[in-house]
């Protein structure tokens, strides 16, 4: 049986008339790397903020490491085992690296000083330097150090590679991909689909505040197919009114159908409409993402 570190049930957040998150039902499996994708304003950051108790849900419920996110006491308990790295990577500018490490360590009884010391050396962070004098890449490394030294069960990152140079991105991705082996589940939002595809075991795509996709990368590779069809006349959309169809793109008499359960059913229906199958190919995460958020079925 799968064990979930994050579970949400009909989670909603409304800001005035804007529905930032509307009825989100999502589960994140323990000891995996899960990528959280979505367009700008899809509700990624709001979801993360609700999980961490920074923003209160309008309705619905959720659990973080088995504790309710709507109960302040339980949410606080959950936060003892959760590490978070925010999108803008801002840390207390007036503290030195050493001060910030000591400050953070004081809140976590399981703090591993040896891990902090080893990461300080590995990331080449100067202990005496003020945080405001660090580059964005160094601030990200420091945030990661603060997160990992506390031995978190769950690490949540919001756009972790945003603004980093390629070398820093590579180091970060390598670090993240190795964490589940040490018992840390990684849940990270990103716009960089190639990065998600590289390190994630599973991907959740949120679109207009709702979960549109929740699949493992293996499921995407094995089951999803892009079928390119050519019709003798204007192709009928209703022909592919099937639950496994993720997206349909029509260009003249040509149609590209993305199916989540192989190509057989699509091919069979296409042939019944005298269509010619031009191509059947596996799809990548980029195609799935674009198909999901551009043409939501």
């Amino acid at each position, binding site marked *: 049986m799968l064990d979930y570190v994050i579970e949400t049930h009909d989670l909603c957040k409304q800001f005035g008339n804007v529905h930032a998150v509307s009825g989100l039902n999502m589960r994140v499996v323990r000891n995996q790397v899960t990528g959280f994708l979505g367009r700008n304003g899809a509700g990624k950051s709001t979801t993360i903020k609700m999980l961490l108790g920074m923003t209160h849900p309008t309705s619905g419920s959720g659990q973080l490491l088995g504790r309710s996110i709507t109960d302040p006491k339980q949410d606080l308990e959950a936060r*003892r085992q959760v590490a978070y790295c925010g999108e803008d990577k801002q840390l207390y500018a*007036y503290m030195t690296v050493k001060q910030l490490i000591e*400050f953070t360590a004081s809140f976590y009884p399981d703090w591993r000083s040896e891990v902090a010391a080893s990461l300080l050396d590995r990331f080449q962070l100067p202990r005496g330097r003020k945080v405001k004098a660090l580059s964005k890449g160094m601030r990200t490394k420091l945030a990661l150090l603060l997160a990992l030294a506390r031995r978190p069960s769950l690490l949540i990152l919001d756009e972790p590679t945003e603004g980093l140079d390629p070398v820093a991105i590579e180091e970060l991705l390598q670090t993240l991909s190795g964490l589940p082996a040490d018992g840390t589940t990684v849940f990270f939002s990103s716009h960089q689909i190639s990065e998600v595809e590289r390190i994630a075991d599973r991907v959740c795509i949120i679109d207009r505040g709702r979960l549109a996709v929740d699949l493992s990368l293996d499921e995407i590779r094995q089951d999803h197919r892009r079928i390119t069809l050519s019709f003798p006349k204007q192709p009928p959309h209703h022909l592919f009114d099937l639950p496994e169809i993720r997206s349909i793109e029509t260009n003249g008499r040509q149609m590209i159908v993305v199916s989540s359960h192989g190509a057989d059913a699509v091919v069979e229906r296409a042939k019944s409409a005298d269509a010619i199958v031009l191509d059947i190919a596996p799809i990548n995460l980029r195609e799935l993402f674009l198909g999901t958020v551009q043409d939501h079925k």
Partner: protein
Amino acid sequence: MMLFYKAWLESRTRFLLGLLALTGLSAVFVFFNNDVRTIVTEHEVGYVEYIWKGIFKGHLRDVYVVVTLLMGLGGLDRERSYGTAACTLALPVSRWRLIAARGITGMIETAVLAFLPASMVPALSPFIGESYPWSLALQFGTLWTIGGILIFTIGFLASVIFVGEYSAAIAALVILFGYTMTTDLPGMEHHIIDVHDVMNGSGPHDATTLAAILLTAAVTIWSAGYITSRKDY
């Protein structure tokens, strides 16, 4: 304990500037009393009255009031503009504890600033051949502390209600100005305690009045905590 440390690091610049201003001005009032005396009062007054008019009732008290008001500013909304609110809120501590740490730190700083002129005046006076009673000075230090705490909480509450560093500062000054104007209206002394008069000893400063001021300050801090606990960041 580290939350107090954080609160101190965030407020220390304002605190040290206040400390510098109050120390310098206290020294000026004592050492240059012959020159300053003509600015403070047109009448011939004794040293103790001059100190009261210049420091405990006068310009220095006004400086202290503004400093304590500014000491109250800050907190999570200010952190939001710096981008660090998420770091703070992700810590395994309740928002009430964050508020408490900042409030207690600010009140201690307010008390230290209040006792600065109260200890400097009697300590420095012998150097110019004058004397000022310690008991009287410490009494003013206590009154300044209690009044200062109330004014600190005005800034504290404003920084929770009004998002934006300047908006909160302006709102706090407007509230203080409005309060001062209201208390100056004829007959209002029967309805509202004028904290400025309490601080300089010319208004009521019995135990009940002082307790009422501290209770008001506690309610103001609690209100700030309540608003913070329900806010979205």
